């Protein structure tokens, strides 16, 4: 039984889907476009929203009517950007600091001290270009880990443009440091427009009792594809979208462990300091059951060509495919039977 997501969403071709909703342009720009549109709408209504950027062109915002004094580019200086944002937050603003997710790592101590200690209301939008031509230096593989490690910061990773819009709206209203990790890999709109997103609430998008696949971001897409593969083999996988990465929905995790007896976690992130290990902590504490963690294993990535849809090359190289998730599910179930 499918809930909250469109019945055929993950089986559709993203390019076809986007054409069908009238989007023109490369598929991977759709998410960014919807993100910018949402932010602009909110910023025009809320005079406390401001934009801080490191090597960002203010014209992108001022041309849409945001006052110049509320759009600050500091040049290629991420540490300064982070703490300038903190200063704005202290003065009652809601600064949006948008960058490639891995770049926040340059300001780790700044986030820890200048944002985290006083829980300043800075919104980190970690826009991931999603493993592309940049190579090892440009791939976000441990950003969630270092962000979750900052006490008090709220961390979320929406799965598609619909969830992103809702995450942004809720995240901008929320009072406190916030990290939203946005992937840009082309997907259809998985979620229905009226899906009741709530910060901190994981949701079951596909019912099942044989195993639970807990996922977020782009991996939700792959988890749903994996559940199709498993269904062909008579295995009913429960698919859970856990888009709030901190705080985790402990109740949902415990329930999934109890009711399905096997858990698979799937993340496009390193396993070390990843969300899977935290989910394991909850499982071990509440209802210990066999678990498999799908994620990147302690290594660096490399480039793929920019043209065409080359992400599958990296997906395969780093064992993040739907196939990997389905295989992991079967492994976990096997251990259940012993």
């Amino acid at each position, binding site marked *: 039984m499918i809930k909250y997501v469109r019945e055929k969403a993950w089986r559709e071709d993203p390019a076809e889907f986007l054409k069908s909703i009238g989007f023109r342009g490369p598929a991977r720009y759709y998410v960014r476009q919807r993100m910018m549109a949402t932010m602009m709408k909110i910023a025009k209504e809320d005079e406390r929203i401001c934009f801080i950027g490191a090597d960002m062109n203010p014209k992108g915002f001022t041309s849409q009517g945001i006052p110049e004094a509320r759009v600050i580019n500091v040049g290629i200086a991420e*540490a300064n950007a982070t703490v300038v944002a*903190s*200063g704005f937050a*202290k*003065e009652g603003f809601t600064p949006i600091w948008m960058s490639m997710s891995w770049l926040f790592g340059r300001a780790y101590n*700044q986030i820890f*001290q*200048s944002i985290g200690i006083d829980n300043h209301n800075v919104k980190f939008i970690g826009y991931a270009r999603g493993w592309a031509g940049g190579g090892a230096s440009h791939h976000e593989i441990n950003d969630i880990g270092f962000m979750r490690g900052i006490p008090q910061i709220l961390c979320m990773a929406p799965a598609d443009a619909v969830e992103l819009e809702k995450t942004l709206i809720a995240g901008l209203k929320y009072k406190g440091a916030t990290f939203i990790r946005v992937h840009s890999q082309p997907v259809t709109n998985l979620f229905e427009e009226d899906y009741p997103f709530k910060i901190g609430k994981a949701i079951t998008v596909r019912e099942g009792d044989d195993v639970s696949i807990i996922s977020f971001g782009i991996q939700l897409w792959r988890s749903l594809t994996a559940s199709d593969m498993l269904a062909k083999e008579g295995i009913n996988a429960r698919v859970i979208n856990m888009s709030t990465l901190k705080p985790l929905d402990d109740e949902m995790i415990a329930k999934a462990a109890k009711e399905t007896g096997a858990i698979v976690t799937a993340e496009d992130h390193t396993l070390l300091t990843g969300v899977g290990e935290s989910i394991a902590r909850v499982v071990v504490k509440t209802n210990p059951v066999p678990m498999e963690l799908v994620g990147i294993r302690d290594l660096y990535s490399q480039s793929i060509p920019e043209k065409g849809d080359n992400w599958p090359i990296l997906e395969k190289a780093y064992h993040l495919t739907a196939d990997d998730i389905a295989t992991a599910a079967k492994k976990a179930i096997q251990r259940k039977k012993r």
Partner: protein
Amino acid sequence: MISDKIIKNLEEKAKQTRKDIMVQLLGAGGGHSGPSLSMVELCVALYFHHAKLDPKNPEWDDRDRIILGKAHACETIYSCLARLGYFSPDLLPTYKHFGSMLQGHADAWSTVGLEYSGGSLGQGLSFALGLALAARAKATYDVARQEGTPTYRVYCITGDGECHEGEIWEAAMAAAHYKCSNLINIVDYNQFSVGISIDKGMELEPFVEKWRAFGWWTTEIDGHNFRQILEALQLADNISGKPKCIIARTVKGKGIPLYEKSHAHMIPLTEKDYERLIDTIY
């Protein structure tokens, strides 16, 4: 005109501040004697004379903001805040005690009157820049502020060693780019970082020229001479279109002869040490 009376009053406050520093160091069993003592006159001039503050209203929106970038020298600021009435001087001996309002590094969450929670260096100036830029951003929705002239000044006190941090220069570059005239950085140039002198550790000279090259109005003064400090602060107020830097040449440990000689960054302090040193304050 700055009268002799004003100067004398500030000098007395400076002596009181040095006594308060010793009381805190005794209460905690030790602390950052050198860096706290070197910036006494700078802080007293700001807190008791030049800055627009209201101890009864720490959140007053038009207050001048003072950021301690070198947050380890918080003993000095705690004394100023206490003597101004932000909290009782009775709290001073509880410095660094678990649960005390007075943390080991200046922390906004803990101490009323503080704006920033620091400790890791190089960030205070960026924060001060954010506060300063926010003043003009407020004018975009607050009709009362739409003159274009920010209603408050932001002072940042940085250490000389702290200016080794790259982020200081990121902030310096941006402040000049944005012609941030309500931002005043005061460098406590006491010539030492933790274990070594600045010239032997990592030379900052030509220091004035560096700030000027980054586009700041810059002046160099004797950081223990109240007249020079007040004149520099006044001069800075009259400069428009650029941020301001006051480089204050100071002595690490100033005011207690033993500490002046040793330039120690951090010292332990026992009852015996306290009894021995408290009356040597000048």
